[in-house]
């Protein structure tokens, strides 16, 4: 292969890399951490597009992350854990901050976009205690952006009128709510790496 062809391939790869990133398979990696099952989705990037623009406009967006465990491929769910997070973008430092809500509130700031995404998964886990260590299990991670639709990231309390109801149902049908769902399995708790 001559030098021109190599350069051409290199240039093509350089141009294609940003697009190829979106094509990477969104898999769910799992690990055991002190008796708790934790997941990671390194290829799932949800702080982008419209969500990112709203964060850059100063909005605090709420995300719900739910982990579900099943022993029968989700015909039934044996365990479930839901965490809620607020993500915001520091206008001056251009870094992300995440707060986990509820009891045992935790927060992190000065995060890159990928680190903020990872932080939410790292702070959600399902206890494995009591599960049959040798039985096959499946895990599902569901992430949903809960930001109030009507306020650009801020709450408004819309007065309920017929017109607003029509608008609300219209939006619900268009599916503006953003959701992601990833699954992994089967796996045996006994085989999980720490």
């Amino acid at each position, binding site marked *: 292969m001559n030098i021109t062809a190599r350069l051409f391939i290199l240039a093509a790869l350089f141009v294609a890399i940003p697009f190829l990133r979106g094509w990477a398979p969104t898999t769910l990696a799992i690990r055991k951490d002190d008796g708790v099952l934790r997941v990671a989705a390194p290829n799932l990037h949800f702080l982008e597009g419209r969500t990112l623009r709203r964060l850059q406009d100063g909005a605090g967006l709420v995300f719900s992350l739910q982990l579900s465990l099943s022993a029968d491929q989700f015909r039934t769910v044996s365990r479930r854990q839901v965490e809620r997070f607020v993500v915001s973008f520091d*206008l*001056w430092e251009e870094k992300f901050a995440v707060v986990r809500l509820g009891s045992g509130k935790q927060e992190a700031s000065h995060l890159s976009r990928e680190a903020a995404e990872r932080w939410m998964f790292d702070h959600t886990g399902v206890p494995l205690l009591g599960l049959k260590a040798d039985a096959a299990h499946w895990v599902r991670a569901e992430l949903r952006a809960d930001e109030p639709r009507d*306020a650009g990231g801020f709450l408004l309390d819309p007065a309920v009128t017929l017109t607003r109801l029509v608008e609300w149902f219209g939006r619900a049908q268009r599916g503006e709510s953003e959701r992601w769902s990833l699954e992994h399995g089967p796996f045996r708790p006994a085989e999980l790496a720490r």
Partner: protein
Amino acid sequence: MVAAVFVAGFLFGLFSARAFSWNPGDDTNVNSRYTVESVEITGASEARLSRGLREELRRYVGQRFSPEAFARLSGRVRDELQARLVSPKLMKGSAPESVRVVLDVMGRRVNVSTDRSRLAWHTRQGWTGDLLLTIEERDRQRLSLGVFSDGDTPTERFSGAKAGYSRSLLNGRIRPGFSVSAARAQYDTRTLQAAGVNELYRNVDSFQPTVTFIPWRGDDREELTVDVGLRLQRFALLSPEANRNVASHALVNTLRYRRVRGDVETGRTALTGLAALANGLGGDYSFDRQELRGGVEHQRGGSRLTIDFTGGSLRGNAPFTERFAAGNTLFLRGWNKFEIAPLGGTRLLASSVEYGQSLKGKLEASVFVDTGSIWNRGVAPEARTSAGCGLRTRDGFFFYVAFPLRDGRIEPMVMTGATF
């Protein structure tokens, strides 16, 4: 009565519901440590906001940014401007660690609404429904389509379809347009017994070209509007003669004034006035009709006081549709219009004083006293008074029980409904 309870329950549930929402606290947004350098409004003139709200927006300059406070303020801006959406945005300020808050007011380019629609039920009059669908291209043109069956406002039940179109010129200061309607009338037996030959009509078709001018807009939600137009009507009379059609043409001029001062927290006063003149121009009728309405509403905290008055006069030979009616859900609530004026009247004087106290959320308990008279020229007017109480919400739902104040039997009237 069962229907009234059902409708009241349904509408109350609809209008007292609150949309689910969840708002993260100030401490969850990393930008809450920055100082607000300025608060700006884009997409609408700041002059359209009340002074109180403008001053409150200015008070946040120099303070820490509070997402919760600006969420509330955005809601108030949206309500005052009647915008579809007010979206707050943060931008870096000119000084380090400061931010500019921009409230972006967005109306829909094409807005579809059912504003001015109405549903009501009255013990004596039954159902009234008026569904009006308006499609509006922002600041350009407006098309409305509707169906109605109004057994409340006029003496007769007036059912049919209507449509209208208007175009906006010079930033909405001039709006030429027209409306058309076709309606059929039904009458109470007392009206039929009292009416003379050729007095009532079976059908009416109307065409009304109008030009609306807004010659003056004040700096604090003050506006003067003038409508100038023609009303061309063709009636098919309820007459033994077959196909007896008559026409009524009139020049119709209306002057409206509206002023809103302050806000609810510190005291909000809304003043409205209307003067309408209709002069017969030709056709089979010749008449002059004048109507004057005024209203003051003062709201402070959870209290509201509303005072309304109406006066009207009709002279000459006028079609039945021009006559005034009272004893409905608007005037002399509690009286039965078929009892006090089965043919309506050519003179009307009516007033209403209503006091409301907020109970919880948007729900309000209110009491009122209506007084007035409806009569015909040459007949001595008889003053009538009624009183009532009920529940209502800020969104337009109402449930009232009203009693005419007179000697003898007490006959309560129940009226419920909602405006959308």
